């Protein structure tokens, strides 16, 4: 059996400590979103608004359901400064932009989302926090 190197074990422990720390130092609890594995939701819609403010940026997009109803989804990100560090600016999305959004849905069943990934129709990934969800806790 391969025995992990001490440095690898130490790194894993440190990474866990960091992750737990990040979760416990969040501005605002994300307990209302379903973070269970396999619960991510993806839908397609058209951006109608971007609110670039503290404490968190949010993107609003309209999703046309098969019934014809249009549901307005509100997707939460992190603070403006954190999103700038991720390459997103207040001009990244404009009203009318079609997007594919992947997110943690609100447990309460309302059309609210903790955004994880946003992709444009040409496949360009605009935001991808799937490997750095700790950023959403800040």
């Amino acid at each position, binding site marked *: 059996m391969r025995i992990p190197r001490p440095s690898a074990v130490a790194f894993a422990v440190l990474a866990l400590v960091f992750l737990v720390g990040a979760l416990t130092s969040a501005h*605002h609890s994300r307990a209302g979103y379903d973070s269970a594995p396999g619960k991510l939701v993806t839908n397609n819609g058209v951006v109608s608004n971007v609110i670039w403010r503290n*404490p968190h940026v949010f993107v609003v997009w309209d999703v046309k359901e098969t019934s014809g109803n249009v549901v307005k989804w509100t997707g939460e990100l992190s603070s403006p400064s954190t999103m700038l560090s991720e390459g997103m600016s207040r001009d990244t999305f404009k009203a009318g932009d079609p997007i594919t959004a992947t997110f943690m849905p609100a447990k*309460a069943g309302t059309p609210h989302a903790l955004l994880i990934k946003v992709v444009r129709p040409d496949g360009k990934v605009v935001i991808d926090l799937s490997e750095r969800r700790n950023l959403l806790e800040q």
Partner: protein
Amino acid sequence: MRYGMRVFVVTLATVVASAAGASSQAPGRTPDRPVVPSVGSPAGWAQCPRCQNESDRSEARARFKVEGHAFNPRDLTGVYYGGEGGNRLFADPPPFTAAGKERFQATLGEKNAAGEYLHTKDTSGQGGGAQVNCDPRGWPRLAAGNYGFEFVMLPDRVLQFFEQTHTWRTIWTDGRKLPDNPPEQRWMGWNVGRWEGNTFIVESSGYDDRSWLSQAQPDGGWPHSDQMRVVERWRRLNYGTVEFQITIIDPEIYTKPWALRPVQVPLVPGTEIWEYFCVPSDFNSFNNDIYLPVATGEKK
């Protein structure tokens, strides 16, 4: 640095790091993931500490020759960001007094529909799960949530500016003493500082007891009384690092002094403090559009 040039430098750094099999990524980042360039600042202006990504910080530390840079240990000047702070800085409090236990119980809030705790009694606007109303976080709670702070040294005082909530505190170094009975209680306390060797000692009192020391887990917040005294020890370990250690002395709430572990915070050269106000109208929309629907299921 112009945006185009910065993108080039970041891209180059990424390629070099990948080629070398570099494993020096910050915790929380996946080493194999390409670094997305951050959004640059306007020409002539610097990014805020939190606007940088790890590549920006590495590039800036090299550009400003932080490693081995000469420094004056009695000069704290600079913008600092990061370090292992957060609410876990206030871990393992000493036992409460009877009054302290009562005060802590009063900070416990409600649970959401899923039975999870909400920090509903937190009025600062920075606690997880709470509606926001922008009461000041105050000191020393600001030490637990660092969006970047800046020390400015003046002949008779040291100013510490905080990006989060866009506030500051004044640490007087002109020899004045802390008042025995201050005429007002302050969210930041009344602060005086002095040098002992290369350690900057800050003592403070006269605090407003509505603030929390930090959010507690899984609910509530660590309280303090208006009799709290705080002693801080700041040291510039090298040009690129400042260290602080805080001790809370509040016999009304805690049965013995609460000495927090030392925290080292890196200098972030090439950055400047931006504006992160707690704006009540902005936070009202956050409460109404996000917090309440998500926490309660109440549809707009």
